[in-house]
């Protein structure tokens, strides 16, 4: 019974600390702290860091550690942004092999039947020559060098009018057809463009070009075929468009469907977790070393995958995937400056995950196995527990939670920098777990404790910001809080142990 009481006292302790911090903030900076936006952030950050904390708690319970969590968050973010990357291409675009402005010639990289004499074309996308709108006068066939350099590949030769004779020659670029606007209806938000565009659909985009200068890019909401032409309803302001403008429809190309992308990233995380677990259980490597290598490796791979450039899918998924993180469940609204109070969907997901984790840990035989092997792996093995399997499961839970966190953090920012995204996240996660009662010796842990521990870490950071304490002290303060928390825990344990010893 004393063991349970100890657990309850610990949770009460950090809850008390958390509530105290909240009260101080509410009293000293009420508008900064209690406003709807800040509260939303409190919930959101607790959810995002919290899933990482829950993941690492399982590893800590098996008396291991995972230092690679931050890098997994980064890798998951990079992979997701690659898998879900979106590009827009004209449906009828053709790659250009070369242009010769003096001769008004465009040689395509391939043969095509799509262009006919009289068509309006747009040449663009070259690094060497300016974009231009041209009229096609004649299409012919010619030969261009193939891979071996022999003039055997067939390609179309376009004789055009309108290329500026002073433009430099170029060996790249794209040519696509332009379709004149027939009618614009700004009130209904529709544009009628020539041609049957059956492939055009919602979320595609159209680039509208004014031959006298000017461009607009608008998102398509829907299409309707009318008498051989296409009426496009658009998202956005059509006021600038007018007759004489030309439309270049751009089809949206998403690298992978969302569920496939998500499953792939989770699958990769699962695999990494299995690798961690196998290295620890079968090759008997130290978890510290294995996951330290992971930390370096996964970040390195992330940077390599995107050439160390910032990456992200912007607001492409604003109304779908991003909702998992940023979607708001509105509660109520107060007058300025407090604003609207809402809870992010991510928080609901987090609570769901926490409940699952708590049930797994405390109510299933698997949780009991993990607690036992965390305390004494040999005794657990001698009692018939498959300690290798349970340890691997711990590492898998951690990396999968890392991937979930990666999704949250990617949705949170427009773009992420692979050189620094996720830096130190493992320390926040471990700190939250330790504050919440997970002993690094293994065999002890409470999911509720991790939740509160995470909230405490997030609140501390908020405290530092809102109280205008120097940023540089952030790590110092967090370090002190964790130290105090752990020392208090040890002292409490010793006191309880003394009482128990004297009883038997």
């Amino acid at each position, binding site marked *: 019974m*004393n063991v349970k009481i100890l657990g309850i006292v610990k949770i009460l302790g950090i809850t008390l600390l958390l509530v105290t911090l909240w009260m101080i903030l509410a009293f000293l900076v009420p508008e900064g702290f209690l406003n709807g936006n800040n509260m939303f952030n409190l919930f959101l950050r607790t959810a995002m860091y919290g899933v990482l904390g829950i993941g690492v708690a399982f590893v800590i319970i098996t008396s291991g550690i995972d230092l690679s969590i931050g890098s997994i968050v980064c890798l998951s973010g990079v992979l997701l942004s690659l898998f879900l990357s979106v590009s827009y291409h004209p449906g009828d675009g053709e790659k250009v092999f070369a242009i010769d402005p003096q001769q008004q010639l465009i040689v395509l990289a391939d043969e095509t039947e799509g262009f006919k004499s009289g068509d309006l074309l747009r040449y663009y996308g070259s690094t060497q020559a300016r974009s231009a709108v041209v009229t096609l006068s004649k299409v012919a066939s010619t030969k261009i060098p193939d891979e071996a350099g022999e003039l055997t590949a067939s390609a179309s030769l376009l004789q055009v009018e309108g290329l500026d004779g002073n433009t430099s020659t170029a060996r790249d670029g794209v040519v696509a057809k332009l379709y004149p606007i027939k009618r614009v209806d700004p009130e209904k938000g529709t544009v009628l463009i020539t041609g049957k565009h059956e492939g055009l659909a919602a979320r595609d985009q159209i680039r509208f070009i004014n031959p006298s200068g000017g461009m607009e890019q608008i998102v398509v909401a829907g299409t309707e075929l009318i008498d051989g032409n296409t009426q496009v309803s658009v998202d956005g302001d059509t006021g600038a468009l007018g007759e004489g403008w030309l439309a270049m429809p751009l089809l949206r190309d998403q690298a992978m469907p969302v569920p496939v992308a998500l499953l792939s990233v989770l699958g990769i995380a699962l695999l990494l977790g299995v690798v961690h677990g196998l290295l620890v259980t079968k090759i008997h490597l130290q978890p510290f070393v294995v996951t330290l290598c992971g930390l370096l490796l996964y970040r390195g791979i992330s940077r390599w995958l995107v050439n160390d450039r910032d990456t992200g899918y912007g607001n492409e998924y604003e109304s779908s995937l991003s909702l998992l993180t940023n979607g708001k469940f509105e509660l109520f609204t107060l007058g300025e400056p407090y604003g609207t109070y809402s809870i992010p969907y991510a928080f609901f997901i987090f609570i769901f995950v926490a409940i699952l984790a708590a049930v797994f840990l405390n109510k299933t035989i698997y949780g009991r196995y993990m607690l036992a092997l965390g305390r004494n792996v040999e005794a657990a093995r001698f009692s018939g527990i498959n300690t290798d399997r349970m340890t691997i499961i711990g590492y898998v839970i951690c990396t999968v939670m890392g991937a979930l966190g990666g999704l949250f953090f990617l949705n949170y920012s427009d773009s992420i920098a692979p050189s620094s995204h996720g830096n130190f996240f493992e320390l926040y996660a471990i700190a939250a777990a330790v504050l919440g009662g997970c002993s690094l010796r293994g065999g002890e842990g409470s999911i509720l404790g991790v939740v509160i521990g995470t909230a405490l870490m997030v609140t501390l950071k908020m405290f530092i910001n809102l109280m205008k304490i120097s940023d540089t002290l952030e790590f110092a303060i967090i370090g002190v809080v964790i130290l105090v928390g752990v020392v208090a825990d040890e002292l409490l344990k010793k006191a309880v142990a003394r009482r128990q010893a004297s009883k038997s």
Partner: protein
Amino acid sequence: MQDSDSSGECDSGGTTLLECKGIGKSFPGVRALGGVNLSLDKGQVLSLIGENGAGKSTLMKILAGVQPPDEGEILLDGNPVEIESTRAALDLGISLIHQELNLATNLSVGANVFLGREPLRGGLIDESTIRKESARFLEMVGLDVSPDTLVGDLTIGRQQMVEIAKALSVNARVLIMDEPTSSLSQAEAENLFVVIKDLRARGVSVIYISHRLGEVKELSDHVTVMRDGENAGELSRDEVTHEAMVRLMVGRDLSEYYERKDREKGDLALEVKKLRTPVHPQHELNFSVASGEIVAVAGLVGAGRTEMLETLFGVTPALGGSIQVSGTELELDSPISAIAAGIALAPEDRKQQGLVIDMTVRENLSLAALKRDQKKAGFLDFSKEKRISDEMIKAMRVKTPNEDQVIRFLSGGNQQKVVLGKWLAMKPKVLLLDEPTRGIDVGAKSEIYALMEELAESGVAILYVSSEMEEVLGMADRALVMHEGRITGELTREELTEENVMQLATGGEKTAA
């Protein structure tokens, strides 16, 4: 001279070296020692015996300076002394040698002897003095190793000698030895007794704590018995008998210590043919145990007995040969498969292998049965768990305030009962026991013997490893004796004598009954 009252007075004319008068010590909620008296003469071997929880360790810790007494006084050479720290105790010449030795296994013998008080020359450690001086003390204990030998390379028995040499090098006048023979082979124990007798001749006094009453009888000049934190009685050399000691320790007559009865043997429960263990792959083991049989496995330390049990349990899977349980051939590659086949093992290292020491009684009792008793999808069946826990605590008579007590705080005997209870809940066909009563007091020991008898009666096949001759002779229907990895012989009940066991254990042959 007759002396069996509780006053703790010395019984011979020897000069009193150390005296404890009315020592009391309390912890929150418990009175560990209540007015205890102890008297130790110069050059005397005094044995301190008592059940677990009798207060022996508490008293010794006070003498060694680990904790101060709440009441009473300690007199050294007739003068009252305050032993405020372990350093102070050492300075007074009182040295405590723990059951688990306190040596740095990564350092040399000499370095260990002078650990903490290294002689310096020019600010650096004076290795040659260490070597010379430690050699002197090593000779005193008859340890024939070079001071440069790494302690980790020595056997436990010899490591113990290093500890004694270390104590002598700080001029110990009183050597307190706590369960010194629990990890020693018979030969090493004999050697220790020789050294103790030698120390006595030199005027060093020894306080000897042990549960092995046979040793106590052999060594002691005087025996002080404790029970429930108080003096229970004194026995002079000629009064020391097994019965007298047990009666004073337990406070009642323990008749029929070993409850062995003749039983009906059933079918063969365990058949082992040409079994080769990873540790001794060159020997093939052949034997069988019938249901209802209690078979002892005797031998010296290092004979390979624990290794054999661990192979039978799948901890270190066999390299060859066959194991059959109730006629079914088995592939035992892990404890999981052994348990599924109906085999259970109570391991040698109770705290490290047998129990999860920081979990509760209930959690330990149910640990092996969790998979079998689970509810759908892996959920714990808390009601079944409680039932097993209640049943086993009652059946094994585990002394614990409640089922949620952390096992670390139970006595050795009760811990062992929990280990056995865990396996009994699995209803095994074959029960393997490795040193089942090591470090356990008399009362708990006899309970475990009674349990073994009960289980055999109900048809369980029991194979138990023991280094206590009395236990082997007392409980076994049959005995296997091992020597350096092979079974040198099997002894029937009639052939079971100390000589035969020792002969076979040292690689010899048994003499005809």
